[in-house]
């Protein structure tokens, strides 16, 4: 099921690698070996499959969004892969369950994670509660304020939140703090990185754990329509939901793959692939937002989960080879698509996923519109965003 398996030392073309302090290198080498062994172990896979089914709620449905399609699909069918229906509200649980099982298998009793929107933090907190692992989630203070419901959820699930007050106080600096925590505690601790970023082997591990989205979606699409989608669309922050669904279609040369980055607003953007340049951030070489002096530039997006100045190395390779294309939509377009899906389909999407929907709406308003069926990865639900979007909701039901 591999897409573009790293040939050497975790490289996707020129991207990837392991840019970490020496202290972590033995831990990364151990992790690489442990994952390789677990991934071919039928007992590990069947335990993961059972948890995905009975605990996580897989397979998630494939749903044709007829009213959204009629209003915004430009005549094309629009289908949604309903990752929003996963336990804890997003595709993140696919990764957290797998890595928590891996942590237990490696004998690590403590888990650290970073989180932006809080979805990865909540998923990891849940998986750790389930498996009896200690869980510490590093989260920027800005994100704690705008994603308060998820902070409450993580605490209910027994996780300790470590507020990050340095730098941008968002996902970038939370990731830095999680890495520092892991450097200090590598003997006892597994770092459950939440996206297809970071040093090798994380981009590969996270992709493999998220590939279930694409495998399911392809089979479901064929069963429902007798053909493949013409276009597969997903939002891209670090890029795990996109690689998850792209994995299922990458070998199908006729299927166009579109990653949608956050175009943000006049305050800034998070389009590392579209407007960034290659460099090293958080352990890997990939596209990122930096100034002429190599300092990392703060990202901006209305969606906390996309508010990150880097992107996974495999996306850099897919961009350079042309197998996937990357575009961006801005905050305003994402909000419009968010409201459209709420009203037309009775589904409240995450602001992150709304970027993928917004791309469809914009693309299909252009002439000529795409005419084949479009599959959108609806990566998460928007409950977490309600406190921000609808202040009178009183915190989104947390």
């Amino acid at each position, binding site marked *: 099921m591999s897409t573009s398996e790293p040939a050497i*030392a975790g490289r996707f073309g020129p991207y990837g*690698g*392991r*840019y*970490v*302090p*020496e*202290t*972590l*290198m*033995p*831990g990364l080498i151990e992790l690489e070996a442990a994952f390789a062994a677990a991934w071919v172990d039928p007992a590990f896979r069947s335990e993961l499959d059972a948890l995905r089914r009975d605990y996580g709620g897989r397979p998630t449905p494939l749903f044709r969004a007829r009213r959204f399609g009629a209003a915004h699909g430009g005549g094309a069918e629009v289908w949604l892969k309903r990752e929003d229906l996963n336990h804890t509200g997003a595709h993140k649980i696919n990764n957290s369950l797998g890595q928590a099982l891996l942590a237990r298998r490696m004998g690590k009793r403590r888990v650290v994670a970073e989180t932006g929107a809080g979805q990865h933090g909540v998923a990891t907190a849940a998986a750790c509660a389930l498996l009896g692992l200690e869980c510490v989630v590093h989260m920027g203070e800005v994100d704690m304020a705008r994603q308060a419901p998820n902070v409450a959820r993580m605490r209910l699930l027994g996780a300790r939140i470590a507020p990050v007050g*340095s*730098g941008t106080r968002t996902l*970038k*600096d939370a990731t*830095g703090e999680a*890495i*520092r925590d892991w*450097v*200090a*505690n*590598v*003997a006892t601790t597994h770092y459950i990185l939440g996206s297809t970023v970071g040093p090798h082997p994380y981009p590969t591990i996270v992709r493999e754990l998220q590939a279930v989205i694409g495998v399911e979606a392809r089979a479901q699409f064929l069963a429902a329509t007798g053909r493949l989608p013409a276009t597969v669309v997903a939002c891209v922050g670090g890029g795990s939901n996109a690689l998850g669904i792209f994995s299922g279609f990458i070998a199908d040369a006729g299927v166009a793959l579109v990653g949608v980055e956050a175009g943000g607003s006049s305050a800034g953007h998070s389009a590392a692939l579209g407007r960034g340049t290659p*460099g*090293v*951030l*958080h*352990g890997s*070489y990939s596209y990122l937002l*930096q100034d*002429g*002096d*190599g*300092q*990392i530039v703060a990202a901006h997006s209305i969606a906390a989960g996309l508010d990150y100045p880097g992107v996974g190395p495999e996306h850099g390779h897919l961009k350079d080879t042309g197998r996937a294309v990357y575009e961006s939509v801005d905050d305003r377009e994402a909000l419009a698509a968010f409201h459209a899906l709420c009203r037309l389909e009775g589904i409240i999407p995450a602001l992150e996923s709304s970027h993928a929907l917004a791309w469809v709406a914009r693309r299909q308003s252009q002439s000529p519109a795409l005419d084949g069926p479009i599959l959108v990865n609806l990566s998460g639900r928007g409950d977490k965003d309600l406190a921000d979007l609808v202040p009178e909701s009183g915190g989104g039901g947390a």
Partner: protein
Amino acid sequence: MMQLERTTRAERDAGRKALVPFFTAGYPGEGAFLDLVRAAADAGCRTVEVGIPFSDPVADGPLIQASSLAALRAGMTLRRALALTARATAATGVGAVVMSYANPVLRFGATEFAAAARDAGVVGVILPDVPHEEAAPLRGPLAAAGLPLIELIAPTTGAERVARIAADARGFLYLVALTGVTGAVADPAAHAAQLVGRARAVTDLPCYVGFGVSDAEGARRVVRDADGVIVGSALVRLLQSAPHQTAGVGDVAEFLQSLRKALASPAREVRT
């Protein structure tokens, strides 16, 4: 043999323990930075480590992070840091090993960076987020400019790995004395003896211990085994807590003198 290694070996052969202070370029100010390097020279330091400020320093604890951010806010850049380093080394004759993260160097261009660093009188380069496996593309251009890329080993580095890393090491071998980031509270001597033992089994390069050395007693205990100590966060702490820059420089100067004295009389107490 490159210049840095001539210095480190000569210092060891003379029976002197090396004291290598770390200063963030431009912190707490450009003038104060120059005064700090002067104070290091006055304390008998032959080599100083100069940190190039970076926005996302994952190997550094809160103290060095804060100094880095303060220098960036004051307008420090890689080019300015090298120019400042050139002034400091020219004025004092000490050698500067610069510490940067990978990204600013890659952005500058490895070959261009090596040439600019050499022209600034730099004698070695430390890149804490570039482990041995990723070092080759950087080591070549640096070596061509006469600059060693300093190799690091940590408490987590096994014997076989130490041997592989030490084989490519030049200048000195940097022993990370704690499992963590810079400035963490630890007993550096606890790991130092074991790390030095592992290193000595495979290399005769001078071994310097850094991360977690925060006082004269710690430094004295570390050099029972090691050839030198690197002190960073403890200096930033003094600079941060001083009422003004001049006082901070004075505190650091005094502290370096006390470290120098401690290193001249290595601990002889019974090991526990």
